[in-house]
C-alpha cells in the first residue's frame, strides 16, 4: 500500500514537472568538420557566448541549444533535421551555413510546424515563390551582398568585370545579385567546383582574358586558397580584385597581409556602433581570442532572436513566436532588425576594407554604406 501511494505521488510529480521547468530547446546545425570547420567553430563559439550572456535562459525559461555537425553534406543535414524534430523534440531549428543544405531541410522543418532560423544561408529558392511562413533569415538573402558590391563597382566607374563563384545554389545567386546592379560588361562568368583547392587553371585563363576587374565569391577554405594563389600569380598587376564572403576573420588569419586593402560588402562589421555589437565583439575577443566574423555575429543574433521571440510571445508556440519575429524590431548586433514580408531582414549593407588594427592583427573596417534599408527582390513573389 505504501508503495502504491509513493508511485502515485511520483506520477503526480512527473505530470506537474514540465509546467515548472519548461525548457526551450534549440537544434543548431553548423559545419564543424572538414575545411569549413573553422566557420562552424566561430558559430559554436557565438552560440555559447549568447547563452552565457543570457544566463542559460531563452525568453526567461531554461534554454538548451544542441549543436550538431552537418559536415557540409545535404544528406547529413536531412538526418540531423529529422533527429532535431522527432527525437530531440526541439522548439526551433537554427544555424545552417550552406545554401544547398538549407534547401535540403527547408520543407522538412517548416512543414513539421517548427520554426527554421537561418544564421547564414539565404538561397533565392526560399525567398520567393518557395517561401514558407515558418522560415526566418537572421542573415541576408544571397543576392543582396553581391548586389551591393555591384552597385559599388558601378559607382566606381568599373567598365568590365570577370566573375567567379563555386558551382552551387549560393554561387549562382551571388552572381545573379551582382548582375542586377552592375551594368557594365561581364567578361566571363566562371563556375568552379565547391571545395576546390587549386585555382591555377582558372587564374591562367583569367590572365589571358585580362579583365579590368574581377569579382569573386569563394567562402571559407576556398577563399584562403584563392587569395593566396591570386597573390602568388601576381594577378593584381592584371586585374583589380573585389570579393564577397571571401576575406573575413575565418580566412584572414591564413591569408594575412595578402588581403590588405581589398574591399568587400557585408551587412555586419565588428565596428558597427551599438551597445549589443560592442559587447559581442569585446566579449568574443576576450573569450576566444581573435575577431568574430559575420558567421559568428549571425549565430549570436539567431540565438538572441529566439530569446526575444520566446520572451515576447511568453511561450514556445510556433504561431506566437512567428508573430513576434515577423513584426521585426529584433535586437541584434546590427541594431534593431526589420523584417520583410518574406521573413528576410531589411538592413544596411556596408563597404568594408581589410586593414591592420592597433595590435597589428589583420581585420576589417567599415569605410562606407552602399545600401540603406535594403530589401531583397524576391519578396514580391512570396505568398504564405
Amino acid at each position, binding site marked *: 500500500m505504501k508503495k502504491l501511494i509513493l508511485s502515485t505521488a511520483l506520477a503526480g510529480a512527473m505530470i506537474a514537472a514540465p509546467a515548472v521547468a519548461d525548457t526551450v530547446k534549440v537544434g543548431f546545425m553548423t559545419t*564543424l*568538420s*572538414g*575545411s569549413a*570547420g*573553422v566557420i*562552424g*567553430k566561430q558559430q559554436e563559439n557565438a552560440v555559447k557566448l549568447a547563452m552565457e550572456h543570457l544566463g542559460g535562459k531563452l525568453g526567461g525559461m531554461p534554454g538548451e541549444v544542441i549543436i550538431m555537425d552537418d559536415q557540409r553534406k545535404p544528406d547529413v543535414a536531412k538526418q540531423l533535421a529529422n533527429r532535431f524534430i522527432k527525437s530531440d523534440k526541439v522548439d526551433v531549428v537554427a544555424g545552417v551555413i550552406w545554401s544547398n543544405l538549407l534547401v535540403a531541410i527547408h520543407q522538412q522543418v517548416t512543414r513539421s510546424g517548427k520554426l527554421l532560423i537561418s544564421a547564414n544561408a539565404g538561397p533565392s529558392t526560399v525567398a520567393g515563390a518557395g517561401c514558407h511562413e515558418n522560415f526566418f533569415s537572421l542573415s541576408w538573402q544571397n543576392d543582396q551582398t553581391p548586389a551591393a558590391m555591384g552597385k559599388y563597382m558601378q559607382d566606381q566607374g568599373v567598365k568590365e568585370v570577370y566573375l567567379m563563384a563555386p*558551382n552551387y545554389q549560393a554561387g549562382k545567386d551571388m552572381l545573379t545579385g551582382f548582375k542586377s546592379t552592375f551594368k557594365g560588361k561581364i567578361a566571363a*562568368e*566562371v*563556375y*568552379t*567546383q565547391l*571545395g576546390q*583547392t*587549386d585555382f*591555377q*587553371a*582558372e587564374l*591562367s*585563363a583569367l590572365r*589571358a582574358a585580362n579583365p579590368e576587374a574581377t569579382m569573386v565569391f569563394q567562402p571559407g*577554405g576556398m577563399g*584562403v*586558397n584563392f587569395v*593566396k*594563389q591570386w597573390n*602568388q*600569380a*601576381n594577378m593584381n598587376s592584371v586585374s583589380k580584385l573585389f570579393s564577397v564572403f571571401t576575406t573575413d576573420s*575565418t*580566412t584572414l*588569419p*591564413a*591569408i*594575412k597581409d*595578402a588581403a590588405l586593402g581589398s574591399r568587400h560588402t557585408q551587412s555586419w562589421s565588428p565596428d558597427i556602433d551599438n551597445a549589443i555589437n560592442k559587447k559581442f565583439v569585446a566579449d568574443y575577443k576576450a573569450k576566444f581570442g581573435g575577431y568574430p566574423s559575420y558567421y559568428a555575429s549571425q549565430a549570436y543574433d539567431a540565438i538572441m532572436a529566439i530569446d526575444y521571440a520566446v520572451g515576447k510571445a511568453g511561450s514556445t508556440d510556433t504561431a506566437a513566436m512567428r508573430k513576434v519575429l515577423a513584426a521585426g524590431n529584433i535586437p541584434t548586433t546590427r541594431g534593431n532588425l526589420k523584417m520583410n514580408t518574406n521573413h528576410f531582414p531589411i538592413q544596411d549593407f556596408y563597404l568594408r576594407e581589410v586593414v591592420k588594427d592597433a595590435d597589428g592583427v589583420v581585420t576589417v573596417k567599415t569605410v562606407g554604406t552602399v545600401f540603406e534599408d535594403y530589401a531583397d527582390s524576391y519578396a514580391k513573389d512570396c505568398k504564405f
Partner: protein
Amino acid sequence: MTFALILEQIFNGFQTGVTLFLIAAGLTLVLGIMDFVNLAHGSQVMIGAYAATVLTALTGNFYLGVLLAIPVTFLFGIVLELVIIRHLYQRDHMEQVLATFGLILFFNEAVRIGFGPGALFFNLPDSLSGFVMVMPDMPYPAFRFSVIWVGLACAILIGLFVARTRIGAMVRAGASNPEMTAALGINIRLLFRLIFAAGATFAGLAGMMLGPLTAVEPGMGEGLLILSLVVIIIGGIGSVRGAFIAAVIVGIVDTMGRVLLPVILRSFMDQAAADGAGPALASMAVYILMAVVLVFRPTGLFPPKG
C-alpha cells in the same frame, strides 16, 4: 584561345599530375604488393604539410623545414606500419577499408586538436615567389615550376630504383607474385615496411609542396586520395610507370576539362545551360576517362607482368 595559354594550361596540368604521382606511387605499390587497401594514404599528405609548416616556422627557413620534414614523414610511416598497418595484412579488404578509414578520422581529429580547425599560415619563401619566363610573354609562377621539376626528379628516381636496383627487382617481383617472392627467401615484410614508409614520404613531400599553394588544414589530402585511386586504376595497380603516365594524363584532363569544356559547350548551347553543364562535366571528366580505360583495358594501361 592562344598557343601560350594552352601551353600554360598544359604546365598547370603537369604540375597537378606530378603531385598526384607522388601520392599514387606509394599507393600503387602498397596495393600491388601487399594487396593492402590504404585509405589513410591521404593523411600522409596532410602530415607532410603540417610537418613542413611547423618546421619552417621553427627554423625560419623553407628549405630547411622541408629537408627536416622528409625524415619526419619517413619515420611516421615506419611507426604507423609497425603499430597498426602490419596487423591488417591478413584481414580482408573490407576490414582494411574500415580500419584505414578510422585512421583518417583519427588523424584529422588529432590535427584539429593540436593545431585548431582553421588553415595554417604558410607562405612561399621569397626566393620562390617570383616568376620564370617559360617563353617570351609567358610568365609562370616559380614555385609551381619547381614543383614540376621536383616531381619529375622523384619520378625518375623512383623509376630507376624500381627498374635498375636489386631491391627494385624484389619490389617488382613482389608486385607480380608476393607468395613466390617470399618463397624465394626474400623478407617481404621488411621490404613492405620500407615501401610503405617510402610511399608515406613521397605523399608527405606532395603535401609539403602543396602547403604553400593551398590551405594547410585538417583533411586536406582526402580529395587527392580519390584522384590518386583513379590514377592507379588507370595506370594499372602495382605499376610505377603506369602511375606516372596516368597521373600526368589525369592532371592534364582535369585542368583542360575545367578550362575548355565550358568554352566548348558555350559554342553550341546557350550561356546559362553551358555554365551549368560545363563545371559538372569537368568534375566528371577524369572518372569518365577511368570508365573508358576500364572498358578497354580492365587491368589498367600498364599492369605489372605476372
